[in-house]
């Protein structure tokens, strides 16, 4: 026995959704506006891509809003106007990033060759053609700089986050503000601080350890803020369960909360690395910048990717500029990979 509902054939009506006809009309207006902007550019003083873009936007806005105004009235006309404006805003946000990615890849890939990753620049100047020398020393330097910075910044960052989420003491508000303020410290000030506090009075020499200290200052706020967000996501039930089983707060945090937030904390650290891997100004002040391999972080100038790019850029010849773009490509790929790893871990469910 089957009962058929009398309403079964009636589809729900969605009058707010654009019908095919609406879409076709929008598309037609879009094409017409492009055509109109081409006409405007060819017959008036406007010229170039900028003129094309501006006249297109104006024509499109005018026609679409005018049509909405005639058909539905002023409220809908305003709505469609804003509709176009937000789309234009997003377009303007995306244009620079697309241009940066395009330029770095198209200008940088020419300099790639296997030796690039193993040789250093001690035997050639930045003005040599791109197929001699390499940035092996810079990669080693960046690796050392970042790993030593991690030793300082990860404990401090995570402890700060733990204070804000687990202890919630009376300093929580000021510390949250200070971490925020620290994330706004200009990178050159961090370099100057290391210069004034350690390099001038104590060591008097560049070394990558000092660079790491400056980078750690810049990395702590990123790690602390991201870790705080992650730890806040851990359900309070877990903490209560830990305490109810007789655990002290120390054991609850160390055995339950931190393991549950493991992947999130890893994300925080990786985002921190991405933040400092390309940091240039403090490195220029304190880490020196050698052009040969240096595996000792405690003495001697240490090359690094940003420094390599900076030197190549400053040399100014076509060859060195090409080398700078190649360096940027390598740096960009590193940041990109770090970012992808961070998103991969960040997207996993907390608590697994």
């Amino acid at each position: 026995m089957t009962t058929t509902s009398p309403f079964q054939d009636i589809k729900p009506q969605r009058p707010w959704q654009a019908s095919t006809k609406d879409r076709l009309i929008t598309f037609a207006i879009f094409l017409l506006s492009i055509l109109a902007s081409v006409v405007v550019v060819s017959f008036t003083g406007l010229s170039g891509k900028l003129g094309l873009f501006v006249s297109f936007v104006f024509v499109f806005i005018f026609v679409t809003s005018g049509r909405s105004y005639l058909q539905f009235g002023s409220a809908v006309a305003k709505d469609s106007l804003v509709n176009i404006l937000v789309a234009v805003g997003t377009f303007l946000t995306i244009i620079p990033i697309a241009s940066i990615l395009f330029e770095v890849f198209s200008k940088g890939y020419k300099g790639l060759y296997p030796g690039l990753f193993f040789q250093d620049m001690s035997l050639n100047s930045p003005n040599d053609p791109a197929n001699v020398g390499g940035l092996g020393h810079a990669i080693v330097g960046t690796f050392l700089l970042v790993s030593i910075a991690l030793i300082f910044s990860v404990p401090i960052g995570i402890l700060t986050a733990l204070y804000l989420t687990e202890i919630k003491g009376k300093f929580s508000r000021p510390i949250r503000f200070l971490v925020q303020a620290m994330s706004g410290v200009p990178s050159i000030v961090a370099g100057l601080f290391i210069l004034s506090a350690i390099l001038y009075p104590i060591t008097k020499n560049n070394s990558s350890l000092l660079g790491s200290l400056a980078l750690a200052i810049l990395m702590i706020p990123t790690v602390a803020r991201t870790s705080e967000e992650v730890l806040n996501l851990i359900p309070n039930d877990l903490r209560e369960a830990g305490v109810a089983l007789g655990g002290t707060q120390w054991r609850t945090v160390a055995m339950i909360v931190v393991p549950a937030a493991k992947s999130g904390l890893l994300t925080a650290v990786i985002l921190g690395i991405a933040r400092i891997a390309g940091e240039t100004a403090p490195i220029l002040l304190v880490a020196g910048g050698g052009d040969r391999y240096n595996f000792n972080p405690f003495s001697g100038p240490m090359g690094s990717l940003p420094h390599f790019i900076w030197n190549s850029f400053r040399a100014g010849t076509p060859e060195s500029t090409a080398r700078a773009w190649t360096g940027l490509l390598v740096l960009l790929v590193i940041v990109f990979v770090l970012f992808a790893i961070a998103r991969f871990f960040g997207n996993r469910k907390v608590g697994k």
Partner: protein
Amino acid sequence: MSTTETTYLIPEKRVVTTKPRFSDKVFRGVVTGGGLSSLVILGLIFGFLLYQGFDIFKSQGIGFITNSDWDITYDESGYVLSNQFGLASMLIGTILCAFIAVLIAVPISVASALYLSFYAPEWLKKPMVAIIDLMAAFPSLLFGIWAYFILMPSGAYWAKLLNNYLGFLPFFKNELRIFSNSPFVVSLILAIMIIPIITSISREVFAQAPLDRIQAAYALGATRWAMIRAVVIPHGRNGVIGGAMLGLGRAMGETVAVYTVLNIVFTINWQILVGAGGNVASMILLKFGEASAYETKALMAAGLVLFVLTLIVNFFSDLLVRSFGAKGK
């Protein structure tokens, strides 16, 4: 039937106390210490820069901020004969560029945040958010070199257009007719750098707009824009302003990207299209290479001024974002 005597072992009464164990005391101590380290680091930065720059503040007085000459002369043995350090042109240049950058960036960021929150189709939303976050993580060196090679020619062309049509305004005057290396191009690159920051903060703020009111607005027949104007903007205004202030702080402290583009000159310049301007952070980097010990002290003092300036901006930004969070409805 025999009666067995059972002895009950009555355990000693447990001591119930709220006093933390020793391990907890250590834990709390360590964590609190770690938490206070940000205070310590900021204090140390302030203290050391003040210590190193103290001579300069003493000898230059208030002139360090109000003058705009930067001269130092030595005799043959390297003894300082006369010196004159003034940051006015650099400070004005820094604030001017950062301010214009925020003026350019805020409308674009708010528009893209609105698009991502309320207009974008689902399939587009996630990749777009990822790309904009990635852009926030780009190193400033990348922006700097891109700006020098790619943005500067276009920027100079746009500056020429502005000068042609709006040249009667004192801001857009340019008698030299040279448009590269100008504060205008610096503002453009700074705007591009802070757009992702302001966008992601605005997006977070908009995401917290109360859903019931959004739906109520729609139910009353509001268009999308009417809903945004009635619900989202009143709710998110402070948060967006706070995000803009945060972007302002970032733009003020930017070093490398400004250094590559700007032509640093120690005169106060309000004409943003002229290829001469000032910037504290870039000036420090520029002068550092050739600076003597005494001049380095002046650079430290300049660093301290920049540090305090960004702290103040960050403080107000934090206040605004917080006040938004406290309202929370």
